[in-house]
């Protein structure tokens, strides 16, 4: 499945031919590597380049939404050895945009990384690719070969003074490597246990050298921003939320998939593009930014537009743009149980509150789901999350806490029902049929 639908395609322009359009010839035919050529031939200054990215108000697409131009400007100018690193460790449940970007337009990522390397003065880069998507890793290696053969990578790129090489590093199954310093540790051949910050990667990154890390989608947007100009890119979206964004819509919709829309597009529009609710059932809740983002009930999300500020105002996060749609067949306790299991399973284990707390949360939710909940459990869960949040090296502990708190906050009565009656509010058969597994193509 390539692209389902889009408004104002940029990053997805190359997706139309699906698996047939990823090669370098297709990319060049679409205007690919033109911006790299322009930057090098015009000897654009690093400052001008970074200024352009700042103007675009491109915010990092990996989850935190940090302004990309600003991040690049943190790189120390004088350091002799610097790196750029791309985060394609897409493991946040609900997120599957980077995989498609890498499948259908890997050269956009490569071009974006080379330009970023130029902007921050790096000579080498690595793209860290999620373990489970081997075919994507292979394709990216092939794309790198093509780029190298075409002279876009290596020494004196396109006859300029600028040399840059790029390599792919394949993960092997650890969500925590999506966290940028866990990722760096992993490239260094260690467990992906995040580092305490500060120092931040811009000062102490890969092999201790200044490093810029961005998400795949962030890098892929760079050639397009340079192509249309920062100002124009910004204006596609909303103030402080420049450009378009890929949303991965999963769950109870008729057409799950990736959708590129301008920042600020109403959620209802996005839902409509995804074919509406599966079987015409009623929307119950949406996790708007990947599993770590607080869940929002139907009425709240229906009033939101899809951009950082609107979703934050509603009490959640735009995160990675993973929109998990749940209809009325979902038992919220069971949904939370699965998410809590995920964080318990994926905690790297170094920080006490996360190592011990993530298991505690999961066990209590599991108990409730299995009819052994106690009235005091909801307070206990809130207290444990309180004790986890803001006390760890990375944000995974917070990510484990947010779902618990938001599920209890918005669906408290369903949890209470579960505890009192030792069973789901939603009857099991309804839940079973909700997945569409048993009658394929349920309409």
């Amino acid at each position, binding site marked *: 499945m390539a692209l389902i639908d889009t408004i104002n395609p940029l990053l997805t322009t190359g997706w139309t031919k699906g698996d047939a359009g990823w090669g370098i010839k297709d990319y060049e035919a679409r205007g690919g590597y033109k911006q790299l050529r322009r930057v090098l031939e015009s000897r654009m200054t690093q400052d001008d380049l970074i200024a352009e990215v700042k103007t675009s108000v491109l915010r990092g697409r990996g989850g935190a939404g940090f302004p990309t131009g600003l991040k690049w400007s943190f790189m120390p100018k004088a350091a002799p050895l610097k790196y750029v690193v791309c985060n394609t460790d897409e493991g946040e449940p609900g997120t599957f945009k980077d995989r498609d970007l890498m499948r259908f337009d890997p050269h956009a990522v490569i071009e974006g990384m080379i330009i970023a390397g130029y902007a921050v003065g790096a000579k080498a880069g690595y793209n860290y690719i999620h373990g489970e998507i081997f075919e994507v890793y292979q394709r990216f290696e092939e794309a790198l070969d093509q780029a190298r053969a075409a002279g876009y990578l290596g020494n004196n790129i396109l006859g300029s003074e600028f040399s840059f090489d790029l390599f792919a590093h394949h993960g092997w199954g650890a969500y925590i490597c999506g966290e940028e310093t866990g990722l760096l540790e992993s490239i260094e051949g260690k467990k992906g246990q995040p580092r305490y910050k500060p120092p931040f990667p811009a000062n102490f990154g890969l092999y201790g050298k200044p490093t810029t890390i961005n998400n795949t989608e962030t890098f892929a947007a760079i050639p397009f921003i340079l192509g249309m100009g920062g100002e124009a890119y910004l204006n596609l979206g909303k103030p402080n939320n420049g450009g378009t964004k890929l949303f991965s819509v999963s769950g109870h919709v008729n057409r799950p998939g990736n959708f590129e829309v301008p920042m600020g597009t109403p959620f209802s529009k996005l839902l409509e593009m995804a074919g509406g609710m599966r079987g015409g059932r009623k929307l119950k809740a949406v996790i708007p930014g990947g599993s770590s983002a607080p869940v929002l009930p139907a009425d709240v999300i229906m009033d939101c537009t899809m951009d950082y500020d609107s979703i934050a105002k509603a009490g959640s996060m735009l995160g990675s743009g993973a929109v998990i749609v749940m209809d009325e067949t979902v038992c919220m306790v069971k949904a939370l149980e699965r998410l809590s299991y995920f964080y318990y399973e994926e905690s790297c284990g170094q*920080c*006490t509150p996360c190592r011990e707390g993530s298991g505690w949360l999961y*066990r209590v939710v599991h*108990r409730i789901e299995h009819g052994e909940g106690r009235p005091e459990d909801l307070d206990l869960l809130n207290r444990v999350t309180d004790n986890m949040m803001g006390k760890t090296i990375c944000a995974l502990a917070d990510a484990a806490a947010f779902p618990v708190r938001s599920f209890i906050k918005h669906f408290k009565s369903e949890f209470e029902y579960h505890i009192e009656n030792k069973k789901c509010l939603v009857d099991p058969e309804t839940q079973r049929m909700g997945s569409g597994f048993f009658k394929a193509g349920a309409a």
Partner: protein
Amino acid sequence: MVEIEIDGKTLQVEDGSTVIEAAHKLGTYIPHFCYHKKLSIAANCRMCLVQVEKAPKPMPACATIVTNGMKVFTHSELAVKAQKAVMEFLLINHPLDCPICDQGGECQLQDLAVGYGDSASKYEEEKRVVPDKDLGPLVSTDMTRCINCTRCIRFTAEIAGFMELGQSYRGERAEVMPFIGKTVDTELSGNIIDLCPVGALTSKPFRFSARTWELSRRKSVSPHDALGSNLIVQTKHDKVMRVLPLENEAVNECWISDKERFSYQGLNSADRLTKPMVKQGGEWKEVDWNVALDYAAHALRDVARNHGGAAIGGLLSPHATLEEMFLAQKLLRSLGSENIDLRLRHSDFSADGKRAGIPSLGMKIADISALDRVLVVGSFLRKDHPLIAQRLRQSAKKAAQVSILHSANDELLINLTARAIAPPSHLPALLAQVAKAVCAAKGAAVPSDIASLSITADAQAIADSLVSGSNSAVLLGNFAQQHPQAAMLHALGRLIATTLGGRLGFLGEAANSVGGYVARAVPGNGGLNAAAMLKDPRQAYVVLGAEADLDTADGAQALAALAKAAVTVVLTPFRTPAMLDYAAVLLPTAPFTETSGTFVNTEGRVQSFYAAAKPLGEARPGWKVLRVLGNLLEQAGFDQDSSEDVRNEALGGKREFVAGMSNGIEAVALSFADGADKLERVADVPIYFADPLVRRSPALQQAADSAVPAARMNAATLAKSGLAAGDAVKVGAGGTVITLRAGLDNGLPDNVVRVAAAHADTIGLGAMFATLTVEKA
């Protein structure tokens, strides 16, 4: 410097300090587990969370760098709430088995739980159980108690130099463990017991033997290597139960080696001599002290009268106390003997009379850490000097360059810059090449006797490294000091050091190698050195604290000499079958834990200690025994009231460092062996056989470093001799042949057979430095 405020108190601290370091300066305690001042910062336990003004979240004090004007609150509501939260998490999966835990009473978790824990946890889920690990004979595990602070892991990787432990799996399943099937084997491994803040890693020999609050504690000093680690000796009912490091940044920092930690097990070995014994008519009898002393005094006086004082030899262990050596030499001299020596493993004494002073480290131990270029010559560094090796390991991680010139290439776990490995007989020439290259590079005159040498690439690399620094030293190890051309190595080392404007140092062989010189436990005018008095047997010997077969340069020769003597008086804590053979009188003396005394370490630091326990049986402090002997012989100068009196007499007053140290040497004639195609022995003194006490520690005897000695060769030498590793091989020297297993050691140069010394299996082979023959058995 930056100014910060902690709980309302202002102070100045250095840039780059952490909040916990700053708090320490103020004496403010911040609870912590993973933080340790000597280890890298992990910030994983989260116990040290404090409030920092303007920071929305609590910050880990161990990892937060101070900034000017920072205000820290360690006891604010936010801080205490965070600390309590962490404590609750730490306890939910902890077994809370304090009543049966060896850490009880000295457990940081237990201590902090009192201050920061809530009595009843709300955790009612199933607790985690973690399988225990076999870490070898020294460290025992209760991994369910582990709080994953990773101190032990960081210790193995960063301080001991090899990552023996790691944390496997992840999340709640994370487990501290060695590689499957491996144990912890470095010579520093016991420190992880001290580092473990809970009862997950405890001492295997100590396990369940006492509760910590039942123990009495005494400060002491290590009797083993020349560092003189400061110790705490813990006793129960006058029995030593445990030995721990006493922190002394200038000496052992906060570490001790496993030898120092576990040798106490030997103190109460079945070999302990608890009553004086005399041999009468070929029969050994336990006798009263006065009988034994009388016998000894008469026998020695008779020999002196009938054969002259020169017929008596004194062999003094370099592990004996200053007081013992001082009185022993005094006694021997009073009998007219100048045959006195503590250098029992040496084979070259030609520097005697040429030395400018007492050989020593030539600098402070702490100065080692400031050196930027170091050449270690002839040393099994890691095993002979575990904590000096550790210091060099840390330096080499920073800007320092460390090189070695030796006859074996053992893994030092130091990031070496250069190495030159050659058979023992080639070491002087190799060092001379370095000297020549250094002279050349420095524009100094090249002495004529080394001018014709051609310089090998390895020697050049060492020289290149040395000349590129500004604070260099050449350190001569035990092997260099025991070497048959030790004086040449000394002179060449000196030449290199002076040419560089650097320093020359001796890594002392034993706890009191420097002290022995101060006590004059070396031959006087016309006296025989240790080797000479064994080569040319005496009528009588006084042996202090040594086991002649295992503690000398040529055990076989020593045994033969002592057997021939009419009288051998042995002052010893232990009896051995060999002693029963050669001695006439055995006087039970107290080991270091049962006597007061002094060791002078390799830098010349005078370190005195008191007895930690009463002497076992009728054993008595050696200095007292010698004083009474002096009295019985009616000699003057044996009327000291205390060991302090003896010490002050020996040192010429009370001092922190001894006087008279110098590593200068007059000209030594240099001549170099040419590469004759013979097989040379390389004899190391295995770490856990190096002295009588450590030989008797059952736990250490099970350690990997106590393996049965083999005849080790590199692949080429094995092949040349038609041998394969594991074959039985006949090893011969000077007419005797012993059978050993052949072993492969590719760190050895060609034409070298490595056979450990100081081991019962290899005494028969004789001298430590010798030409050998090998033949498949």
